[in-house]
């Protein structure tokens, strides 16, 4: 039988999920091999195939989520890159938008530009905002720039001129010159190709990121392919983009900037597909951060306001400037510094703090016994009895509960003059309170009421905190999918080949006609047909949706709405009404008298594939014996002798308190909650008083 393989590379573990064509799943956690990621993937895949008795050519397709792109930026290990700009503007990349992500700080260190000043060269040319040429391109200045960059041995060149979104001619001609002078190996990105949208810093930065990553990702994909070939796996490799679609590694090598948030996207896609009609807020809590995202009516939410390398992205432009602007569609994920490794401390005034500092994987929490001395969230969860000291990652990771208790007692409980368990419960409360902020950032901040959503929790720690976060937000439903600890790898298998392309189209709707807009869409559709053909698809294979970014004339921020048509051409009345509704929903008001302006047109093409129903997952570790244990559920409930069960035992619904232990995660069902299995194998928690 045939298999699809989902492979998600993380810092410590690489998660692997194999799905057989009848839906059977096999999950494993492999150690990541940072020196050569391809080797670890190929070795692990070969071993897993052997374990389940499958042959290399049984693998149909490999879908891959990767942090290689992100890490190249975080560790400043991208290619040596040059930037060519309009004369007078080479410092746009360094000046950025000024704003920084902190207040009241006098020694904030700005991230260094990805292209240093000497590699930013200026050429004589200028195009105006309506695409009119104000100063013709002086090709001798382009040649001079190329010669300088060639002397500096750059491997990639970004070209970003003012207003090139309105007229790409100068950039295109310059790219030809760069190719002529610098040869076939140099990686070239034009801003008018990667992001034909207004706002020069964001466009330039995005272009630079693409060029900076190009040579690295090209080499990475080539190596991965080689390693897979060497174990006899010839299946095509697709890679997940930040917006949740997948593309071939061939296309990805040209546009690596699309891959930067590849990893976190997969889990959200998984949630969207598993509850296609549902309203879910996803919560992915791992070792250092918790990430939230919204899935509404089965649709994921995307944004263009994103920075890579900012550390923590609170899904808002308020906290900006910490990283490098990347204005490509990204699943709108709000991240907060609360994970299993988050360090617990007291501030000068005696308040309890959890994170954002993290003990990371090394030394890790005190209970890992690897030299960690600061108590962490995980140490508190262990102290409360939530975690089984002998049973993390299926027993691969033994925990030292006494050390965790001692650290928590000495550093938190004694100074606070509180009982150890109350202190541990406090840590749990504060951490959950912090994560509530991430959930609110994707819901209430956009005018959505979390109570209308289920909390869809995964990641190693998501199922530990889910019910408590739901309590704090007055949410009554929690969903824990199967294999929650390797859920991102599973999500990869549920992704569709999907491409989004966009084009600046700044017009007041009152000043243009529907056929004008239709013409612009048709141009984009021609482009899309060519793009999809390069991926091997004909128009019959995929569906295309038209979207438009609209705003009231004069606003700076747009909302994306579906562009409905009447007959052939867009229906402006319905478009304006849909925008007004969305504005009302998001911001609580609409301004019917205001002119509506279109900023960007978008097309999304998606290839929908048939997938089998999922079956229960297997993994390489046998189940341990489970015995009830003493768990502290806070002052309201106190100590409770809590049954510990496995997931299949929930085929008959049970009331909390309960603990569901699995290979890759632990699900806490507090008193007052009821747990059941749905037909898809999800654990569904419902709050008692909601019925």
């Amino acid at each position: 039988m045939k298999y699809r393989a989902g492979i998600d590379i993380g810092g410590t573990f690489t998660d692997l999920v194999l799905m057989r064509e009848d839906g059977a799943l096999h999950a494993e956690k492999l150690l990541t091999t940072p020196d050569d990621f391809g080797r670890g993937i190929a070795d692990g895949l070969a071993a897993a195939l052997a374990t389940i008795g499958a042959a290399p050519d049984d693998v149909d397709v490999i879908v891959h989520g990767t942090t290689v792109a992100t890490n190249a930026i975080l560790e400043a290990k991208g290619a040596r890159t040059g930037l060519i700009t309009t004369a007078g503007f080479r410092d746009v990349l360094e000046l950025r938008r000024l704003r920084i992500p902190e207040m009241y700080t006098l020694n904030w260190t700005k991230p260094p530009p990805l292209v240093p000043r000497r590699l930013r060269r200026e050429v004589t040319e200028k195009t105006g905002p309506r695409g009119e040429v104000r100063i013709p391109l002086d090709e001798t200045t382009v040649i001079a720039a190329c010669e300088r960059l060639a002397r500096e041995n750059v491997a990639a060149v970004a070209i970003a001129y003012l207003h090139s979104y309105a007229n790409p001619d100068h950039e295109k001609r310059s790219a030809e010159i760069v190719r002529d002078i610098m040869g076939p190996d140099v990686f070239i990105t034009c801003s008018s190709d990667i992001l034909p949208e207004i706002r020069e810093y964001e466009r330039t930065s995005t272009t630079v990121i693409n060029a900076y990553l190009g040579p690295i990702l090209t080499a990475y994909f080539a190596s991965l392919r080689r390693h897979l070939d060497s174990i006899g796996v010839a299946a095509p490799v697709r890679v997940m983009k930040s917006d949740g679609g997948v593309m071939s590694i061939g296309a990805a090598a040209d546009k690596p900037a699309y891959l930067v948030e590849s990893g976190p996207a997969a889990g959200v896609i998984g949630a969207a597909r598993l509850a296609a009609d549902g309203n879910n807020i996803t919560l992915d809590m791992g070792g250092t951060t918790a990430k939230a995202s919204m899935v509404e009516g089965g649709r994921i939410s995307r944004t263009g306001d994103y920075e890579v390398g900012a550390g923590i992205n609170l899904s808002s432009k308020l906290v900006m400037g910490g990283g490098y602007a990347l204005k490509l569609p990204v699943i709108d994920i709000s991240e907060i510094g609360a994970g299993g490794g988050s360090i617990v401390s007291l501030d000068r005034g005696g308040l309890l703090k959890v994170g954002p500092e993290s003990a990371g994987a090394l030394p890790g929490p005190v209970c890992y016994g690897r030299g960690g001395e600061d108590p962490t969230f995980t140490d508190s969860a262990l102290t409360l009895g939530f975690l089984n000291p002998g049973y993390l990652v299926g027993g691969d990771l033994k925990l030292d509960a006494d050390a965790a208790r001692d650290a928590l007692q000495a550093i938190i409980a004694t100074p606070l003059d509180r009982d150890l368990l109350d202190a541990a419960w406090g840590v749990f409360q504060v951490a959950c309170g912090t994560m509530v902020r991430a959930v609110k950032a994707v819901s209430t901040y956009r005018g959505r009421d979390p109570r209308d959503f289920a909390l869809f929790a995964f990641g190693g720690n998501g199922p530990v905190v889910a019910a408590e976060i739901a309590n704090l937000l007055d949410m009554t439903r929690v969903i824990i999918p199967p294999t929650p600890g390797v859920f991102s790898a599973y999500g990869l298998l549920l992704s569709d080949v999907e491409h989004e392309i966009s084009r600046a189209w700044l017009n007041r709707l009152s000043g243009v006609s529907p056929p004008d807009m239709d013409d612009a869409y048709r141009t984009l559709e021609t482009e899309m047909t060519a793009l999809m053909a390069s991926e091997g698809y004909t128009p019959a294979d995929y569906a295309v949706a038209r979207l438009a970014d609209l705003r009231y004339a004069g606003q700076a921020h747009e909302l994306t709405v579906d562009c409905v048509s009447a007959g052939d051409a867009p229906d402006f009345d319905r478009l304006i009404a849909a925008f007004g509704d969305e504005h009302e929903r998001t911001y609580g008001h609409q301004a019917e008298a205001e002119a509506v302006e279109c900023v960007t047109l978008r097309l999304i093409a998606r290839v929908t594939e048939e997938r089998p129903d999922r079956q229960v997952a297997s993994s390489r570790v046998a189940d341990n014996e489970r015995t009830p244990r003493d768990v502290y559920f806070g002052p309201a409930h106190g100590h409770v002798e809590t049954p510990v069960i496995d997931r299949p035992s929930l085929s008959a619904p049970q009331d909390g308190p309960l603990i569901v232990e699995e290979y890759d995660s632990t699900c806490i069902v507090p008193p007052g909650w009821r747990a059941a299995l749905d037909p898809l194998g999800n654990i569904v928690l419902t709050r008692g008083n909601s019925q």
Partner: protein
Amino acid sequence: MTAEIPITAANVDPITMEVVQNALGAIADEMALVIMRTAYSTIVRDSMDYSTGICDREGWIVAHGMTMALHLGSFPDAMEALIRDYGDDMHPGDMFVWNDPYSGGGQHLPDVYIVKPVFIDGELEGFAASLVHQIDMGGIAPGSAAVYATEIFQEGLRIPPIRLYDRGKPNETFFKVMAKNTRIPDKLAGDMRAQVAACRTADAALCDLIARYGGPEYRDIVEELHSHAERIMRAEISSLPDGTWSFTDYIDGLGEKPEPLAMKITVTIDGGDMTLDWTGSAPQVNAAINCPAPFVKSACHLIVKCIAEEEIPNFEGFIRPLNIIVPEGTIVNPTPPAACAARAIVGWRALDVLLGCFAQIVPDRVPAAGEGGVTFPSFSGYDGEERFVCTEAWAGSWGAMHNADGAFGIPNPGGNLTNQPVEMVEALFPLEITRYGMVENSGGPGEFRGAPAYQREYRFLSEETQMVMRSDRRRFLPYGLNGGNPGTPSWNLRNTGTDTQSAIPVMPMEAVVFQQGETFLHVSGGGGGHGNPLDRAPKAVIDDIREERCTAEYAGEVYGVVATGEPATLDAEATNLLRRKMTSEPTDTTRPAYLRHFHKALGISEFRLVGPREMKV
């Protein structure tokens, strides 16, 4: 570290406090996002010149959004005015609006407060407060920020605290009057709608939060959080040495013949208390740079937070240990009807003065002076038939720290503003921007150098464009620290590089008019240096040459570093010799090399230093 936890209320614990503090922060951020996403004018949505806050029932701030720090410290005075006028006459559904510095604790007329009291079961529990820099409130000049107004009556519509909504019903009279008193009624109305929406959002969220605890317990929690902030502040102050320190700086002055205006601070630390006394500052002036006291107090709050080692919570209890003295009738506390539209220049300078004083107390925590604060130009005219006003906020050159070069391209600590995209400005207004970037051979030399100056140049495309602006730091250069040189001066130049090049005063006392095709160049002040330039690591100087921040010639004359070849490499022996020679020989103190190089590129030959950092041109 062991902490003492003197929490008094029996029903409040440190965990609940942390949870509530977080939740309040989330609400204030949410308000800020609503304004950013729904505002209409570029100064609000792109420059982010606004603030949001949650106040308790006494009007004390309990949370603020990540926006303009310099606004926030003035909320207390404004809220005090509101409560004074309406304390016993507020109702669910009410909303209030005001901007008057003299009757309402405001700052200047463009900064408009819209505040909604929050009620639970008929009981007042707090306020959702917003402050937005509105693009035009009428008055003598577009943008309502003319330096040259002499009385507040020329500056626009004064609004004392009044009802914007009365039990949910809009005050039509106000909206009608307002629409007739602004040049840009549609944008003003849009931005006010954004404020209203933000207040409503916060109202709902705050009600939910308070309902979780009940009014009385919530009040106890909030009071404990004020005390917690106060404790942290006192601990910070106590860790500083006791004593008294002073620092004086100057604003260049007004118009064609500027006279320096002194600003003086005296800081006294006594155990856990701190007094900040502005006595010795210049008397108020007949121009619009007088700075109402709330803004100066705000500057004090801000700097105290900046120099603290630990993050001070956004609970206003932290100001209890501070005693701020602002003598009446001075530029730091003018009396009516003094004009104050361009008051921010004094506010920005207050930051420099305070930092100059704290540099003597905690030298490792304070940078040398930067560009002098945000420069606000306002361009206006007609684009065909349509009136336009383009207001921008420029900033981005910091002084050096004791261990790092000054940061280039981040905002002044007083206001976390953004620049406006060049393409947006060009697409929306009849303006062309011809350069925006770093000025080479600029900034104050030092072991760690100040940030280079930035420059931004415009060409005017409409028949006639008026510019109202204020800048500073041409005569009194940004100070250096610990032997570092002062930064480079700021210049405003018309028609640079042509026969008709001329300088425009730092603070023109009238609108400057440009004809079609003329250009305007703003060069910011460059950051002050830290430490002796001859102690700068030669490698760092070579790096500056390679990255084209300075020329090899400049490096030799200013730093005594000899570079050869392309790319530049260090000649260590020649550098040692040259540095020895420079150490033993007297230097030109009236026309130092770094200022010569800087001015040469601008085509300015007439300048000399007449004091350590006073320049005559």
